[in-house]
């Protein structure tokens, strides 16, 4: 009996062994949560960890390329983020300056972003991202921290078009701050000029030009620019006064629309007087 069993075992010993070891493996698999197993594995893991630490200087040759790629991508993303943060910082500074002028004047202000610029034609204009829905109406002045930008000429529900100083249709009553000389600011297609300044009047290079109290469109005292050139032309009664605007129209990004409605009573009266004299 035993002999036969032994012979059978010897004949199929490979399979018996395989079956035994497979069963043993399954038993071991079922012992995964036993603390003894965990203990042995912990000791061996620590031992191997020491070895691994010693060889940690070996570079991961195949991983380096991927890591490098990831780092480059991360670098680009961080550079982009840094750029955005710089932009935000600059925007913050600009808005702070805008807020400062808001505090200085009694008028209401609506902050607006320049969404479009047209600075190549004789009738240069800006489009702002505010409109009737924000309380914007035609003839409202537009300023920034540097000074006068222009005047709103058309409004839709959510957008407004602004005639800027660099527009042949733009006019503003102005005065020289130092000498209180009055004139009209206009753009001749090349320069911003202060018109109607008689040769006898006191205007010098470097004088500050502001909006005057005679203006029906703009509040008094908004800075327009500095006198950059004063020349006297032969055969003319007036000086040719060129102004450098305070605002940089090329870099313009944010502005305020002053919610000052034109003084209708004053405008009406002036119109009536003009009509009377032009009859």
């Amino acid at each position, binding site marked *: 009996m035993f002999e036969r069993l032994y012979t059978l075992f010897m004949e199929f010993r490979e399979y018996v062994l395989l079956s035994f070891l497979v069963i043993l493996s399954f038993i071991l698999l079922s012992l995964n949560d036993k603390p003894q197993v965990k203990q042995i594995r912990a000791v061996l*893991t620590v031992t191997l960890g020491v070895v691994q630490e010693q060889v940690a200087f070996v570079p991961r040759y195949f991983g380096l390329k991927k890591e490098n790629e990831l780092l480059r991508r991360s670098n680009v993303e961080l550079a982009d983020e840094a750029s955005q943060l710089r932009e935000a910082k600059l925007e913050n500074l600009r808005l702070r300056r805008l807020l400062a002028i808001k505090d200085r004047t009694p008028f209401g202000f609506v902050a607006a972003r320049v969404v479009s610029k047209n600075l190549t034609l004789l009738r240069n204009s800006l489009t702002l991202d505010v409109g009737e829905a924000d309380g914007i109406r035609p003839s409202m002045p537009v300023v920034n921290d540097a000074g006068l930008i222009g005047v709103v000429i058309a409004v839709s529900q959510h957008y407004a078009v602004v005639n800027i100083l660099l527009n042949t249709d733009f006019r503003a009553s102005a005065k020289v701050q130092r000498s209180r000389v009055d004139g009209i600011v206009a753009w001749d297609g090349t320069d911003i000029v202060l018109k109607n300044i008689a040769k006898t009047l006191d205007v010098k290079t470097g004088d500050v030009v502001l909006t005057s109290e005679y203006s029906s469109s703009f509040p008094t005292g908004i800075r327009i620019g500095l006198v950059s050139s004063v020349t006297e032309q032969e055969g003319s009664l007036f000086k040719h006064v060129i102004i450098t605007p305070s605002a940089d129209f090329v870099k313009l990004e944010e502005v305020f629309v002053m919610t000052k409605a034109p003084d209708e009573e004053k405008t009406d009266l002036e119109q009536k007087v003009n009509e009377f004299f032009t009859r």
Partner: protein
Amino acid sequence: MERHLRSALMVLGIVVVQTAFMPYIAIEGFLPDLLLIWVVYTSLRRGQIEATVAGFAVGLLQDLVATQLFGLAALSKTAAGFLGGYFYNENKTDQTLGSYQFLLIVGVCSLLHNVVFFTVFLQGSDVPLVLTVLQYSFATTLYTGAMSALPMFAFARKAMA
């Protein structure tokens, strides 16, 4: 006795290399299995019974140092050792070890090993089991097969000398 001691030392060395160095040459997370190559070598050199036991022993050792399921490597390497034993031919051992046959045998054993391993290992996960098992098994098999070219060249050189 001396032979067994030498084998044990070799296995310990391979375990250290496998766990400490192989992760550095992982491709997409897949590692070559040096211990499996050793089991296949044992099966071709010593036969099925010794390879089955050796597979179980080195698998158990691998289970102890790895954080995976305890007993899983033992199970899969036992199967691989058993399968490798079918290719045992004591008259052609050096020829088999030093030729492309060695790569093929490693490939076949590795495939069985990996299918067993990943089938158990991926139980309970949300991945599509059959597809993932095949994907992982083929990838690991390819890498292990490629790595087995190194001992194959060494055996071929030794045979020629």
